[in-house]
């Protein structure tokens, strides 16, 4: 199954490349009053020019992780671990240095552009406020594909549609020439055709400016189609990190497989949806073992006490499941279950027998 391995760059997802733009290591975030950490040992990297997707259902911690890159935490939160942007530790930054970090290196684009724009100021003022000159503001609007930018800079938000405003917000994000763009459900509220336009634009910007992109979405198919690597989050943890193509063809974690089989697709043959039972956990739910155990069809008694940790996969990814096939020689999980029948673990089966690849291809 060599086609499931990363295609050109063999840099494994588990080990951050040396030149990582954003590197989050073991970030744990606790809130007073919450029964479990909001984020639990989250590690991820984004390299320059890389599109990394962060996928999960509501409450999985994906937005919290993205905001951590800006040093932006909920009130009262206690963070441990490390968030490094371009070699600088973000967690310890305060005052002027924190403001400089938020203003220069990283930009965040939210789902709702109207919440980011002052309704009584002109669009041009919004861009100038972010460090662009008057002439540059017009150029920026042209570069994000807004027709007639000369006129647009003098307009106010209510004169434009949601798709146009999201372009304005992206232009504002680019005004400070960031090297990392955090897109938090930035296209989720838009029509599909507008979403395609905005994503095409972001891809162009990545090629032109070497922009790193952390792309947060609830849409697993979008993540797998658009990004280079995907992190899947559940209950504040990263449960799987894979290349996008590996995630589609051989998802390793039962939750990832569940998300794929419960997402409707447009394929020619209609495969019945298989919903994941139960509901995503809230902050008051605690887990002595694997957080997915209650909803997992493949759970065994050992899962209830197994503390999740990323298990490296042969293709360089990782999955936090007790029953994935670990890379030979690397942190064997459960030697006691080493003799489990291979047919029990669909991922392992696929790796062993390439002919069965179609069976797990949910794309």
């Amino acid at each position, binding site marked *: 199954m060599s086609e499931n391995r990363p295609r050109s760059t063999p840099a494994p997802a588990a080990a951050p490349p040396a030149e990582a733009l954003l590197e989050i290591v073991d970030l744990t975030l606790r809130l007073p009053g919450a029964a479990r950490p909001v984020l639990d040992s989250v590690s991820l990297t984004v390299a320059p020019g890389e599109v990394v997707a962060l996928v999960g*259902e*509501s409450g999985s911690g994906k937005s919290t992780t993205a905001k951590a890159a800006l040093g932006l935490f909920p009130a009262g939160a206690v963070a441990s671990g490390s968030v490094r942007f371009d070699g600088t530790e973000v967690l310890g930054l305060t005052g002027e240095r924190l403001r400089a970090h938020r203003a220069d290196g990283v930009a965040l684009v939210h789902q709702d552009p109207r919440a980011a724009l002052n309704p009584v100021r002109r669009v041009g003022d919004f861009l100038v406020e972010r460090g662009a000159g008057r002439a540059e503001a017009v150029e920026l609007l042209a570069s994000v594909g807004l027709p007639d930018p000369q006129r647009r800079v003098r307009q106010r938000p209510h004169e434009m549609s*949601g798709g146009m405003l999201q372009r304005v917000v992206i232009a504002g994000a680019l005004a400070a020439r960031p090297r990392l763009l955090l897109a938090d459900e930035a296209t989720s509220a838009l*029509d*599909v*055709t*507008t*979403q*395609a*336009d905005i*994503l*095409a*634009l972001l*891809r*162009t910007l990545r090629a032109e400016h070497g922009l790193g992109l952390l792309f947060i979405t*609830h*849409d*697993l*198919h*979008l993540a*797998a*189609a*658009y990004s280079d690597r995907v992190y899947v989050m559940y209950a504040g943890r990263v449960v799987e990190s894979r290349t996008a*193509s590996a995630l*589609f063809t051989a998802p390793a974690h039962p939750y990832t497989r*569940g*998300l794929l089989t*419960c*997402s*409707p*697709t*447009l394929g*020619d043959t*209609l495969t019945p*949806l*298989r*919903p*994941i*039972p139960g*509901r*995503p956990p809230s902050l008051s739910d605690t887990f002595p073992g694997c957080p997915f155990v209650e*909803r997992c069809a493949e759970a065994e008694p050992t899962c209830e006490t197994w503390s999740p940790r990323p298990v490296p996969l042969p293709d360089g990814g990782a999955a936090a499941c007790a029953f994935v096939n670990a890379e030979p020689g690397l942190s064997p999980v459960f030697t006691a279950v080493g003799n489990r029948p291979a047919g029990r673990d669909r991922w392992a089966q696929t790796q062993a027998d390439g002919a069965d690849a179609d069976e797990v291809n949910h*794309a």
Partner: protein
Amino acid sequence: MTPHLLEADSLSKTYPLPGGGSHQAAADVTFTVPPGGALGIVGESGSGKTTVARMLVGLVRPDHGTIAVAGRAREPRPPRGRAARLARAREIQMVFQDPYVSLDPRLTATQCLRTALRLHDRGEAEAAELLDRVGLGPREADARPRDLSGGQRQRLAIARALAVDPRILVLDEAVAALDVSIQAQILQLLAEIRAETGVALVFVSHDLAVVRHVTDEVLVMRRGKVVERGATARVLASPDDPYTRLLLASVPTEGWDPTDTARTPLPPP
């Protein structure tokens, strides 16, 4: 006798705009739904799909055009008299995107269902049966909407609509705000209810993949007009209209490149 359960004939609605202009939200929209059928209405924002759904239930009065259920015309304004109004309610019920604003915040799930059952002279004991059918347990039965999750609220909204025992259920973006794992549960529930009760569905959504899973036939709307119609499988597999093709090409799948679909020239509507 007509073989159609629901007949909508040239429904049109024009809204005045500030400054003297006007906006045609729906233009000559015509369709039929057979008993127990499922019709999808897809389109992007501003296509008029919600306006059509609201005209069906009577929340928006069409400028012209008629709606008939089982061969009987629905009057544009609610009839006088309790019996006639209840009969009208039993024809079509609606489920909205956000049940939080359509459910009474003061009523528990059981009270909500009992109110609807009592109004329609049905036994209040059926409330427990309805809760069970939509998969809500005893804990949720005594909870108010604010204590329910989004998926549970949508289950309650569906149970409330079913309490009236309607012939047709109109769902306007009813699963759009839900997490995918919950969305799949609700879609499965709708399929079960349709099989068990024979209720017909009018499923309004922007999500082509969801519509593919729920409906037999589909209307594709753009700027108030129906641009394509037909069996859902056919329309979404081999679309005739360039706009339907653009919509389909914009849905991300493996090997998808947004630049392929971005700014595909479309003929003016």
